[in-house]
């Protein structure tokens, strides 16, 4: 049987516009952990099966290749959170430079969704609490069994004094916000990588984000209503016409 013990580690699908205008690459890529069996990497109908050891080996090869392909000073894939890299990689062609700068805690903004509607908002360090960041803020994760409980003690234990978060040109923290928040609790400044992109392609447009987010939520709600309606119609048919 097909392995029911499957966990999707990550997936990336083209949207309909990308499908129409970019026909030269795969429609979707998905990495699955088929427990006890193999790691599967799907490229459309093509599948690679790997043991966990082979999967880590191939990941190291990809990392080495990326470090050679991205010819930008201070770029080291081994220092970048893979989840952040997946998100940033769409704009990698536009990456112009990575500078190391000292930033003050009053100048930096953090993206948090610690509100009733879970919409991301920009916050300065003084505007939110540790609880807002560690307990209320919840990042979206594809991995179903990802541990969303971020352990402060563990972060502090592993927090290196040379740690540098990744900020964009607007000084918004894009990777390492928990570690930077803890660092700012004892220091007013920190060194940070500033990633600069051509045409400001990596810049956060909060209004565009709200528009897309509201649109997505509306579509999902409509899908749910339609499914419920179809379910109720089916139940009605079975209950009153078949019984």
């Amino acid at each position: 049987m097909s392995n029911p013990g499957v966990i999707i580690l990550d997936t990336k699908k083209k949207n309909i516009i990308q499908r129409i205008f970019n026909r030269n690459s795969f429609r979707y890529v998905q990495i699955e952990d088929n427990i006890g069996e193999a790691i599967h990497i799907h490229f459309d109908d093509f599948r690679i099966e790997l043991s966990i050891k082979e999967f880590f080996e191939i990941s190291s090869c990809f990392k080495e290749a990326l470090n050679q392909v991205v010819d930008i000073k201070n770029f080291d894939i081994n220092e970048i959170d893979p989840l952040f890299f997946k998100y940033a990689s769409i704009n990698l062609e536009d990456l112009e430079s990575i500078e190391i700068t000292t930033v003050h805690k009053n100048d930096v903004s953090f993206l948090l969704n610690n509100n009733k509607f879970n919409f991301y908002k920009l916050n300065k360090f003084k505007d939110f609490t540790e609880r807002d960041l560690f307990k209320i803020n919840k990042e979206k994760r594809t991995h179903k069994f990802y541990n969303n409980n971020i352990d402060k003690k563990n972060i502090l234990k592993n927090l290196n004094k040379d740690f540098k978060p990744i900020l964009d040109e607007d000084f918004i923290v894009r990777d390492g916000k928990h570690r930077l928040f803890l660092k700012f609790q004892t220091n007013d400044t920190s060194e940070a990588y500033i990633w600069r992109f051509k045409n400001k392609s990596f810049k956060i447009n909060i209004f565009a984000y709200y528009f897309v987010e509201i649109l997505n939520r509306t579509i999902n709600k409509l899908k749910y209503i339609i499914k419920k309606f179809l379910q109720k119609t089916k139940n009605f048919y079975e209950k009153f016409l078949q019984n």
Partner: protein
Amino acid sequence: MNKKLDNKKKITEIFKSFNQESIDIIILRKQENLFDNNNDDIDILASYKDFKKLKKILKKNGLLFYSDSKYINDYLYKSIPHHHFYNKNLGLNFDISFDISYRSINNQEFIPIDDEQLDYIWGNKIKIIKNDFYFFQMDKYSQIIHLISHCIFDKKNFSDYYRNKISELIIEIDKTIFFEMIEPIFYKYKKRLFELIKDQKFDNIFNDYISYKEY
């Protein structure tokens, strides 16, 4: 008291009708508790070719029909939604499946076992004869594999009933045959699973399974 008697009478009538119509059904779980009023569902495996006859008998006995929805759940690889026949007054619910499917860990899609595994279950079913009727249950290998899979994939935990039942079965089976039969579901995890069950470490199984790395 009356409800319990009515319930028992109705189940007996229904099963007798199944026997008269030569409809073979396998009770998948809790077959010992068939007349127990606290038993939520009677989980049955039937052949789809008998569906019309089953439906006629169950409706004739005052049970109402509904089926699980393809609009709410995802059914992969031709898995078939369960069909339910219920009578709220009697507290009866026949949960009928025509294949054996488990819910995937990731998105809860229903995934059926292979046809060969299903054929094995039908081919090795055991007849249980009661006073007025008979039914079938799975052989001990299919039964233990089904209960383990049901607890891990559908329930994500092992209730007391299943712990006791699985513990009873595990001492009766041959390890080699068990490994061979469970391989297409649990692959390399089979040996570790066997050890955890042997050691009665049911609380650890689900988390241990999803964090298993030796493959």
